[in-house]
């Protein structure tokens, strides 16, 4: 029996979990997949937007700007990488110039600080690799970059440290409201009972909502594809480079990532299926061609991987954050598309205040926990450390002297740490998201079997049970000679 059940362990669910961990509540997070950040939170641009592109007066605009301002504290408290590298929106035509002015006005109304329209010379001085035929650019110094899955993982770990219970591989199948007002949530891993439910199920939030009879919104998946470049191109630009926004979103950007790669994308294609994260040949060439308009020297080679993510777009295109009209104790947090990552910290707080309001109507209220610890230490990173720190790490644990992932310089020590944190890394991709092992230019070609050996040993599971991303994604299918027996009889 829980006070609050949060459905969905993306950045929104985990931010809410961390926020609620400040109060005297029993909270659980139910996640269908094998790890946190496996939906949209794991596949997006990683941008903390300044907030000039949201329509003034929307919830989206408000939470974007507030969330952006919270990121310095988030980064410090949760030990996650975050950099205010600033963003530039380029203008190529006269029409674009009026778009810049409109964005700037919007930004001012939304409360975005420091916006300026810079002439081309000044922009090109800041970013010499940009298309030199630009007319001007909107400069937003508060724009930033972070690692979306690291933020999610860090929020989850901090929430877990403060008592929130995470249930991975627990897909919600149905929700019944009993006469005592409590929700009985049937999952693939058993039934959970909770007084309050928070629907943070991302791309599936309308389906979850329908389980309590609330059919008030639909989610429309909109796919975005990306190409990630080798770190040798990580300083081609220093700020995040946008083009004037299209009807379908913020357009194709070119940005350094907080880990030092270069990222281009996304396109925006409305799609019928909620699980379609296939990249397409058309999509990837569109992204490349568009990115070339901003940065003409973008290489054709040196892409190390491509991926696609889904935006959860709700009808009306604003965030839907409110109690359900069918049951006040069921709080909707839906339609959190871009700038969801930027807004996530503010969404956590906002949802806590809504919950407090609902509780008060029931004669309760949120009571702060005195022992809440807002700090979380990340995994000690060998590659980022100076030599002195490296030596200290190895002195304490020899395994920090054994490099497993040579491209990203990830040590056995880091992988072992990732496997034993809470929530734990149960899959190869989960290890990758926590340590970057396998994220480099060889894409796990060398380190995958070695990481599997470590997982076999540390988690005490046979090699055949190790998966890439949960059920149905086993890496190996059996021992050698095993298939021979089937017809050769040996």
């Amino acid at each position, binding site marked *: 029996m829980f006070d609050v059940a949060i459905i969905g362990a993306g950045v929104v669910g985990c931010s809410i979990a961390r926020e609620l961990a400040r109060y005297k509540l029993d909270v659980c997070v139910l996640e269908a997949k094998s790890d946190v950040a496996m939906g949209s939170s794991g596949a997006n641009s990683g941008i903390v937007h300044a907030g000039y592109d949201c329509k003034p007066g929307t919830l989206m605009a408000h939470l974007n700007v507030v969330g952006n301002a919270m990121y310095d504290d988030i980064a410090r408290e949760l030990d996650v990488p975050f950099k205010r590298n600033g963003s530039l929106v380029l203008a190529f035509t006269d029409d674009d110039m009026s778009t810049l002015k409109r964005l700037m006005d919007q930004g001012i109304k939304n409360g975005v600080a420091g916006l300026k329209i810079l002439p081309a010379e000044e922009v090109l001085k800041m970013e010499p690799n940009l298309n030199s035929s630009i007319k001007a650019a909107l400069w937003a110094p508060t724009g930033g970059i972070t690692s979306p899955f690291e933020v999610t993982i860090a929020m989850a770990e901090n929430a877990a440290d403060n008592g929130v219970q995470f249930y991975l591989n627990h897909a919600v199948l149905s929700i019944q409201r009993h006469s005592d007002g409590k929700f009985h949530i049937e999952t693939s891993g058993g039934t959970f009972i909770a007084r309050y439910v928070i629907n943070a199920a991302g791309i599936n939030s309308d389906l979850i909502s329908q389980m309590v009879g609330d059919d008030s919104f639909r989610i429309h998946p909109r796919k975005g594809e990306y190409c990630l470049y080798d770190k040798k191109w990580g300083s081609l630009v220093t700020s995040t480079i946008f083009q004037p926004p299209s009807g379908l979103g913020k357009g194709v950007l070119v940005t350094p990532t907080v880990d030092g790669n270069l990222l281009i994308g996304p396109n925006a294609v409305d799609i019928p299926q909620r699980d379609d994260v296939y990249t397409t040949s058309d999509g990837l060439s569109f992204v490349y061609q568009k990115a070339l308009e901003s940065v003409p020297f973008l290489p054709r080679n040196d892409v190390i991987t491509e991926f696609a993510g889904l935006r959860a777009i709700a009808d009306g295109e604003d965030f839907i954050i409110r109690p359900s009209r069918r049951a006040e104790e069921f709080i909707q947090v839906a339609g959190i598309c871009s700038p969801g990552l930027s807004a996530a910290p503010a969404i956590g707080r906002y949802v806590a205040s809504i919950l407090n309001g609902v509780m008060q109507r029931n004669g309760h209220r949120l009571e702060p926990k005195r022992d809440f610890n807002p700090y979380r230490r990340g995994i000690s990173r060998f590659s980022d450390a100076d030599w002195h720190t490296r030596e200290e790490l190895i002195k304490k644990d020899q395994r920090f002297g054994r490099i497993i992932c040579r491209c990203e310089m990830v040590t056995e020590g880091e992988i072992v740490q990732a496997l034993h944190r809470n929530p734990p890394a149960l899959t190869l991709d989960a290890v990758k998201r926590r340590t970057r092992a396998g994220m480099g230019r060889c894409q796990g070609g060398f380190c995958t079997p070695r990481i599997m050996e470590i997982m076999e040993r540390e988690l005490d599971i046979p090699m055949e049970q190790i998966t890439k991303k949960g059920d149905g994604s*086993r890496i190996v299918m059996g021992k050698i000679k095993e298939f021979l027996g089937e017809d050769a009889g040996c």
Partner: protein
Amino acid sequence: MLSMKADVVVIGGGPAGLAAALSCHRYGIRDIIILERDSHLGGILQQCIHNGFGLHWFGEELTGPEYAQRFIDQVEKAQIPYLLDTMVVDIDENKRVYAVNPKHGAIQIQARAVILAMGCRERTRGALMIPGGRPAGVYTAGMAQRLINIEGYMPGREVVILGSGDIGLIMARRLTWEGANVKMVCEIMPYSTGLIRNIRQCLEDYGIPIRFKHTVIKIHGGDRLEGVTVAQVDDERRPIPGTEEYVSCDTLLLSVGLIPENELSQKANVQLDPVTGGPVVDEYRQTSVPGIFACGNVLHVHDLVDYVSEEAEIAGYGVWRYLNGLASQHGQHVDGRVKIETGYGIRYVVPQRISGEEDVELFFRSDNIYADGVVELTDGQEVLVSKRFLRIVPGQMERFKIKKQALPGIKPGDRLIVRWRNLG
């Protein structure tokens, strides 16, 4: 930090590093240390349990581990020190090498000469930009080789192989022996990029079809691979609409090229050749940074380990010359050498610079299949040397010897061109 000095630091204890260290030792150098990132010497040969190694070097057919062991035994006998589990993380132009291992922690070695012998890595699905899902079951051939030969596990049952590189061909046979069904090998080029003998012994002998001018254009599956879409390509390697075919499989192996691993070399400002992906070197295998040498697959990708051993010998000789002040009369830097450039039909040549002080052998690859012609070395006007070839193919490295007497009067800054000329 453990601080050391050494005359020669060899980075990599695979076939190139071992042979280079032994070569240095034979020339009388004693203060050598080999740094190996794995927990054993021998490099990638340890997972190459098939035979076919050593025919040129030892005159007999060995498996990869046997070939490696011969060199390891010699290194042990010569008492050349080595550190295992030791990863070099940095190197600078002053030949300071920074490494790390569990036992010693951080290690700094000031070297007089460095031999780069880090080998290569495999090109990945991401580099090819094959669209589709991102399921488990898409592996490089070398990773599958490690899973089977070292770990003892099968990557899958129904296999498609993309690319006819040698590791892919070897794995087609291995997988068949282990009970998997290898459905086909797709090669985007109209010819194989692997050795002819491997096409015969690994595919034809087992009835595994190879489809030239075909590639994989889509990967199907969310969790585990379910199938691939294969299509024929035109002469520009673009998929031809209407030729798409769905092939169900649970495993896709990629054998689509090897890339010399020169991220470390670049930290020392070693100049790279964009075609080979390895350093620009002179005939002693010295890079653009005096005292830093390179050999093996870090320099350019070889078909046969025997040639790697041979090249490593040369690097050892180069190091000996360097340490004894016998380096080129034109100074230390490779830019003070004659440039060797590629002409018609030639994809690359190693070395890319020569001093002309001694006889030299050029290693080269063609950019296509050519039959009945000559490879020529010319100064633009005259043909200085030529050699007849009945056939040259991109998948097979060829060699071309030049006597010092054939190059009278060449001087630094001169350019010589290697090109193919058809006869008849």
